[in-house]
C-alpha cells in the first residue's frame, strides 16, 4: 500500500485518496512543498513555487469545491506556460521584463478544473531550443538518478520534478522531442499527443508548425488521466482540433490484443549507443513484435525538422536578437542567429517534403498500429558535456539528442515515451508511436508494458 504523502504516490493514488476522504488535499500539498524544499538544492527543477496559491486551492478542494478525476493532485508546469501573476520566463532572462500573465494557460486551467493543484513553474532550456536541460540563467536541471548528469530538455525541470518525486505530474512542451528526451533520460512516461490535440493557448511558442504540449508522469494511468482532462477544442489555439475528445483511461486495461506492432528499422536502427537499441529490443520482445518497417527518408525528415525549427525560431526571436543579444543564453543565441541566415529555399523544400513524408508514413500506418523506436541515442550525458561519440562518430550533444524524436514530431504523430532500465545503469526510453489521433493505442501498449513490469518508473 503506497503512502499517499510519500514521493512514490502517483496522481491516481492521490486522487483516489482525496476523493474518498482518506487524506486531505491540504496534507498532500504540505508534503509536496516539503519534498520540493528538500530536493531543490540537488535537482534545481523549479524556478517558481506558488505555495500560497496551492494551499488556498487545497483548502477549497477539502471544502468540496473543484472536485474531479485529479482531486488534490499536485502538478507543476514548464515555465513557458502562463501562470497568473508571473512573467512567463520560457527559460529566458529577457522575458522577466515582459508582462505578468493575466491568467493561467489553457491546460493549467483544465487540470485545475479537474481538481489538480498547481504548485509551480519549472526550469527549462532557453526558449525551448534545447535537448539538454541546461540553462545559463537559472542553472541546469539535474537528473535525480545521477545529479552529475543531464535531465534532457528542453522540459528538463519537468523531468527532474517528476523523477525526483517532488510532484507526480508535470507538463512540458515538445517541438522536436522536448517531452520525450527528458522522459528517456529521467526514466519517465511521457506523452506527446497528436499535433493540435491539446490547446497551446497561454504558452510561449517556439515553432508553431511543431509545438505540442503534454504530460510527464511515473505511470501510464497518470498520463491518461491528465490527457483526458486536457482534451477539447479551444478557439484560442488555431491549430487545436475540433475533433471530439477520445477518452483513454477506460481503455488502458484492454491489453494489446489486436494491435499490429512493428519496429522501426533503417534510420532508427543505427546512430545510437547499443543501450538505445537494446531498450527497443526488450520492449519489442515483451510485445511479441518481430516485424521491421521503414519510415522512408527519415534522415531527410530530421533535416527538414531541423531547418524549419531553426528558421521559425529565428524569426520569432529576431527582434530580441537584434536588441538584446547579450541577454540570451550563449548556448541558444548563436544557433538562433545562424537560423536567421539560412536560405528560404531550404524552408520551402522542408515544407514540401513534409507533405510527402506524411503521405508515406500514413500509408505505413494502414499496415501497422504501433511503431517502436529509440527515444534517445544514449542515456543521460554528463552535465556540461558538449560532444558525444556514437558508433565511433563524434557528434554535438545539443543537436543530436533528438535524432530519433525529430522525424516523428515533424509530422505530428502521437507518441508515448516508455522507460526501461538495466540494473546499475541510467534509464533510457523507447518511443511507442501511433497514427494521428490514436493516443489510445500508444497508451494501451504503455499500460501493458507497465503491467508486465517491463517499463517501470520509480522516483530516485
Amino acid at each position, binding site marked *: 500500500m503506497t503512502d499517499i504523502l510519500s514521493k512514490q504516490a502517483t496522481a491516481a493514488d492521490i486522487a483516489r485518496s482525496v476523493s474518498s476522504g482518506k487524506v486531505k488535499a491540504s496534507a498532500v500539498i504540505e508534503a509536496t512543498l516539503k519534498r520540493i524544499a528538500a530536493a531543490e538544492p540537488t535537482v534545481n527543477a523549479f524556478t517558481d513555487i506558488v505555495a500560497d496559491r496551492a494551499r488556498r486551492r487545497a483548502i477549497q478542494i477539502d471544502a468540496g469545491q473543484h472536485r474531479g478525476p485529479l482531486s488534490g493532485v499536485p502538478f507543476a508546469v514548464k515555465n513557458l506556460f502562463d501562470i497568473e501573476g508571473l512573467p512567463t520566463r520560457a527559460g529566458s532572462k529577457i522575458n522577466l521584463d515582459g508582462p505578468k500573465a493575466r491568467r493561467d494557460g489553457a491546460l493549467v486551467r483544465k487540470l485545475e478544473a479537474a481538481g489538480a493543484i498547481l504548485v509551480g513553474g519549472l526550469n527549462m532550456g532557453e526558449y525551448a531550443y534545447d535537448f539538454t536541460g541546461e540553462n545559463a540563467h537559472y542553472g541546469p536541471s539535474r537528473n535525480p538518478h545521477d545529479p552529475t548528469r543531464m535531465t534532457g530538455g528542453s522540459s528538463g525541470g519537468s523531468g527532474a520534478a517528476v523523477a525526483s518525486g517532488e510532484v507526480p505530474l508535470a507538463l512540458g512542451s515538445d517541438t522536436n522531442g522536448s517531452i520525450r528526451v527528458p522522459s528517456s533520460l529521467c526514466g519517465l512516461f511521457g506523452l506527446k499527443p497528436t499535433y493540435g490535440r491539446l490547446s497551446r493557448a497561454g504558452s510561449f511558442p517556439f515553432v508553431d508548425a511543431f509545438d505540442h504540449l503534454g504530460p510527464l508522469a511515473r505511470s501510464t494511468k497518470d498520463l491518461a488521466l491528465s490527457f483526458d482532462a486536457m482534451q477539447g477544442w479551444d478557439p484560442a489555439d488555431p491549430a487545436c482540433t475540433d475533433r471530439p475528445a477520445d477518452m483513454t483511461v477506460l481503455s488502458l486495461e484492454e491489453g494489446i490484443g489486436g494491435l499490429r506492432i512493428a519496429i522501426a528499422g533503417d534510420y532508427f536502427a543505427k546512430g545510437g549507443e547499443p543501450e538505445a537499441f537494446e531498450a527497443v529490443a526488450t520492449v519489442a520482445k515483451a510485445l511479441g513484435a518481430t516485424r521491421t518497417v521503414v519510415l522512408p*527518408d527519415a534522415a531527410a525528415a530530421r533535416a527538414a525538422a531541423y531547418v524549419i525549427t531553426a528558421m521559425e525560431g529565428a524569426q520569432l526571436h529576431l527582434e530580441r536578437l537584434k536588441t538584446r543579444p547579450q541577454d540570451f543564453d550563449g548556448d541558444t543565441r548563436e544557433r538562433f542567429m545562424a537560423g536567421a541566415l539560412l536560405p528560404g529555399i531550404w524552408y520551402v523544400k522542408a515544407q514540401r517534403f513534409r507533405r510527402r513524408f506524411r503521405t508515406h508514413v500514413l500509408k505505413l500506418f494502414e499496415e501497422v498500429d504501433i511503431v517502436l523506436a529509440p527515444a534517445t541515442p544514449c542515456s543521460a550525458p554528463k552535465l556540461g558535456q558538449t560532444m558525444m561519440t556514437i558508433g565511433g562518430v563524434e557528434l554535438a550533444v545539443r543537436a543530436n539528442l533528438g535524432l530519433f524524436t525529430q522525424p516523428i514530431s515533424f509530422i505530428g504523430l502521437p507518441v508515448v515515451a516508455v522507460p526501461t532500465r538495466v540494473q546499475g545503469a541510467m534509464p533510457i526510453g523507447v518511443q511507442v508511436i501511433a497514427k494521428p489521433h490514436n493516443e489510445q493505442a500508444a497508451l494501451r501498449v504503455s499500460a501493458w508494458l507497465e503491467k508486465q513490469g517491463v517499463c517501470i518508473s520509480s522516483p530516485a
Partner: protein
Amino acid sequence: MTDGKKPDTMKPDIAKWVDEASQAIGLPIAEEYRANVILNVERSLAIVQPLLAVELDKELTPLPVYRP
C-alpha cells in the same frame, strides 16, 4: 571536372555568407559571437544535406493551411 567532386570554388564561404546575410537582414553580429554563428551555419549546412538530396515531384506543394 571528371571525378564528380565539386570544385573548391563551389564550396560556400560560410564566413562571407554570415557577414553578408546578417547585414542584409539588419542583424548585427558582435565579433565575440561571429565564430560560433559561422560554426552553426556550417553545422546546418551539414545537417540539411539529406533533405537537399531528396528529389521531389514538381507538383508537390506544402500542405495548405491558409483558408480565406
